[in-house]
């Protein structure tokens, strides 16, 4: 192993004089007070090495010994990842001793003493490649595939595979030989460098299937696709985190990876406390069963923020290779970008816009491109859907992180300060936001059969209805209530109805927080039918009164379980209001 010694410290940037060869992004260990502190090589100039320390540097002395490990930052992949709470470097936080995180404390990411029941999926003599399934174990309720290690290149022949039974993760499950007759022993555990994508699949195709998040403004108006990408920018206080947690709780994904990157510790605590109690609406198991949390909160080491998003993405790719639908949420990618900026600044690199490093757009693009829906070697499908939040400085979307992200993410959920101030939650701006998947022919075709014929056209019509409503509102506020035709008020109030009954959703109400696609389809048609109706009012004041009543009934419907007696009661009220208010305001269908 190569070594070196510390020659300088500026905050978490460490300067090392190296003896021997050093690789860029290699992990080195700095000896300090009987501990070994992890750092990543980020620049090599002759024998001078700069490394970013994943800890605070207060204890490091000049001249301290440094070991270069020769490996990049890696994660351990194997059964036992689900339900874990990791820090940004995949240390299991639950296994740590003490109330406070001691400097240099590390814990193993997997449990070496837990038995998993292994079922072989392959016979000796078969030919396999990286990522092929050798067998399966039960991890919580998920079929966790034991795969041919991703690092192996070329074809291998299965020499032996163990019988069905209980094994530890480090037991040898299968023996393979390469074409050159090298013998490889495969356990349940393998390692992978986080900054490289796992590419053990046949092909990556264009996303086409809707991923249900349970949120109307997303699923109905700006749908996310399986294997798709999206981002949520918004000023503070507009509900980014609440929105992301709502998506986490309600989405139809097999595996959920939550990366809390440089955000508030209390928010992670909320996930820790709630997820074990919450039922996954899809499977009836607890949400915790299918979730891994990677948590590097804002007071934890800054350099590990970058690591945390890559660790999360690598775990997601690992589960995708098992043919699972994985959703990864990162809150917030801006904190990661800021960590890059802090380091770039300390290294005295020439800065790009707003002092961010110039390679920021490329770094972000590269990361988002790791999502996607893939066909595995055996023909099965798996997907990684990625949604990141962005915290734009000053709430201004014209800043480097938001701009770089907008170029790569296909869905845009813009949170608006104005909506948040008016407590119209989720504060997703219905006009500014978009889902590019609505323009994918594959997606249109898929919704035609899975939801209803002409679904996407109806969605676009609804967006026009909202747009017209906003224009009418502007006219009304410029010219005055009675200076515009009454029809303007009708147009405006139709869009208000869409706003209150569709876009707004109470994420703290047990019923309203999560809508099935079926329910959304029903209500959306109902609303669009009303949108098509022509009303005749004589006074503009009647319009507001009438629609407020409609909105009130529609909201009560949203609060009632779908198709319950209560729901039906409100539906009758709605029909009645639509018919009978016509005495004075003639209703025509």
């Amino acid at each position, binding site marked *: 192993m190569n070594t070196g010694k510390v020659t300088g*410290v500026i905050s978490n940037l460490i300067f090392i004089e190296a003896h021997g060869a050093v690789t860029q992004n290699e992990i080195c260990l700095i000896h300090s007070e009987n501990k070994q502190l992890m750092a990543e090589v980020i620049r090599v100039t002759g024998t001078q090495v700069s490394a970013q320390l994943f800890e605070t540097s207060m204890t490091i002395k000049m001249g301290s010994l440094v070991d270069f490990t020769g490996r990049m930052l890696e994660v351990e992949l194997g059964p036992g990842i689900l339900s874990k709470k990791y820090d940004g470097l995949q240390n299991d936080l639950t296994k740590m001793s003490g109330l406070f995180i001691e400097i240099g404390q590390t814990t193993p990411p997997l449990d070496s003493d837990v038995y998993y029941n292994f079922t072989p999926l392959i016979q000796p003599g078969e030919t396999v490649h990286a990522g092929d399934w050798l067998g399966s174990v039960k991890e919580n309720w998920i079929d966790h595939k034991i795969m041919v290690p991703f690092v192996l290149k070329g074809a291998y022949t299965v020499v032996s595979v163990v019988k069905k039974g209980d094994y530890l993760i480090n037991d040898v499950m299968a023996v393979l030989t390469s074409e050159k007759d090298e013998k490889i022993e495969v356990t349940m555990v393998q390692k992978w460098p986080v900054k490289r994508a796992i590419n053990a699949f046949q092909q990556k195709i264009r996303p086409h299937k809707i991923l249900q998040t349970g949120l109307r403004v997303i699923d109905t108006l700006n749908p996310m696709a399986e294997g798709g990408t999206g981002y949520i920018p918004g000023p503070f*206080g507009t509900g980014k985190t609440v929105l992301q947690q709502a998506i986490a709780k309600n989405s139809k994904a097999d595996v959920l990876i939550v990366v809390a990157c440089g955000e508030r510790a209390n928010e992670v605590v909320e996930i*820790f406390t709630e997820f074990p109690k919450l039922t996954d609406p899809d499977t009836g198991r607890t949400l915790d069963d299918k979730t891994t949390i990677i948590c590097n909160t*804002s007071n934890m080491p800054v350099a590990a923020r970058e690591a945390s998003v890559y660790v999360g993405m690598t775990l997601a790719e690992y589960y995708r290779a098992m043919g699972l639908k994985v959703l990864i949420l990162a809150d917030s990618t801006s904190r990661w970008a800021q960590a890059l900026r802090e380091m770039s600044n300390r290294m005295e690199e020439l800065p790009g816009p707003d002092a961010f490093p110039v390679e920021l757009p490329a770094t972000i693009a590269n990361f988002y491109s790791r999502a996607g829906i893939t066909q595995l070697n055996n023909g099965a499908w798996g997907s990684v859907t990625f949604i990141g939040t962005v915290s734009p400085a000053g709430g201004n979307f014209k800043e480097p992180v938001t701009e770089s992200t907008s170029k790569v993410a296909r869905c845009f959920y813009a949170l608006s300060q104005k909506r948040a101030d008016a407590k119209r939650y989720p504060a997703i701006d219905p006009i500014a936001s978009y889902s590019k998947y609505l323009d994918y022919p594959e997606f249109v075709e898929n919704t035609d059969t899975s939801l209803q014929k002409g679904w996407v056209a109806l969605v676009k019509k609804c967006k026009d209805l909202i747009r017209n409503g906003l224009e009418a509102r502007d006219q009304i506020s410029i010219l005055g209530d009675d200076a515009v035709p009454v029809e303007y008020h009708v147009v405006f109030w139709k869009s208000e109805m869409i706003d209150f009954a569709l876009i707004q959703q109470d994420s703290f109400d047990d019923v309203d927080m999560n809508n099935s696609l079926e329910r959304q389809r029903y209500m959306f048609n109902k609303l669009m039918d009303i949108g098509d109706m022509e009303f005749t009012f004589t006074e503009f004041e009647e319009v507001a009164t009438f629609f407020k009543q409609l909105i009130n009934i529609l909201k009560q419907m949203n609060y009632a379980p779908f198709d319950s007696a209560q729901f039906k009661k409100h539906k009758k009220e709605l029909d009645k209001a639509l018919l009978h208010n016509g005495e004075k305001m003639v209703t025509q269908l």
Partner: protein
Amino acid sequence: MGFKRIYTKISNITKATCTLKAEGARFGELAKVNGMPAQVISVMGEDVTLQVFSGTEGISSHSDVIFTGSPPILKVSDLLAGRFLNGYGEPIDGGPELRGETRAIKGNAVNPVKRSKPSTLLATGIAGIDLNNTLVTGQKIPFFADPDQPYNQVLAEVAMRAEADKIILGGMGLSNDDYLFFKNTFSKAGVLNKIVCFINTSENPPLERLLIPDMACTAAEYFANDQKQKVLVLLTDMTLYADALAIVANKMDQIPSKDSMPGSLYSDLASIYEKSVQFAHGGSITIIAVTTLNEGDITHAIPDNTGYITEGQLFLKQDADIGKVIIDPFRSLSRLKQNVIGKKTREDHPQVMNALVRLYADAMDAKTKKENGFDLNEYDKRCLAFAKDYSRKLLAVDVNIPIDQMLDTGWQLLQTYFKKFEVGIKENIMDHYWDDEKTVNA
């Protein structure tokens, strides 16, 4: 330690830093330059750069430099109670030297899995807070206020009313008048035995401010964790703290990011605010801070980064219609209120709170309409009348009533000014609390 080497050759002096050749220095270590406290902010081979807290006036290239071998420390014990200290944790009240366990300030982060979910109500009696922006122990929240607003008075008021075992004041760049105001308020209230103050006034060197929040949080951690107490930390004014950060970054030739602030501003502020915590054993640290704004501009890097870190923010606003300072219901937010409202408080709390704010928004729209010279309709007029009453009875900072009474007042306002279908409250709550007989606009 015994013998400590004295260095007498300083190679470089800027307004805030000096550099010398020295051996064995560590990043973050405290040193004395001519007896003045300084901290190591960079070590490059033998070149050690020190940030001199009091500024470098009077330092010569031959001044004495001694390294203490440890980062800044505070001596923690129950003897802290009732004391007034400076940024170095030294008494400024003429009392005896502190004794107790020596602790490095800026301690390690609490393991997130060992935290508890903050869910104990912290009542203040101010309806603009308790009703609309309910606080919880273990929370961190700043007041966003313009310099002309009475933020320190409101902060003191909140501190006096909130139920806390210890109140720790971190004053950064406090005017001497405000320092005396806090001192008088605490002594008049007879709570001197449960306060600890770390004070840097505007007369003290600005860089000394950098130590104040960490000192306050270290003391808070002692009482909250070692003594399992409910601790309230008051930090005012964090804008002046951030300004001091900018000075150091500038002197170190760092490339500034937005608004001349260092690129690490977010992490620097987060390391302080994240000290707020709810421990499983019952102890807690709640941080209420003040961030002064420039003409209400929250897009400036300091309030902006703060907003992303803290769990909400409280805006003060002068309401000209009632001539009082109110807590702005639109811009203010307590993120942790969801943990208690309707659970630790009455079930109708969330719905009443939202209905009132939504209708207040309608009133503001009506106001804009009126100002633009348009005729108001009947609904607009009701909204405006409601807004005035709401502001006076619930939003004003001088309101001091229990939460149930705030809710009752809310219902009374709704019934006075609105029709049943206009309030948009869930049916089961309406059935229980809406009294048709009291409805004015049936």
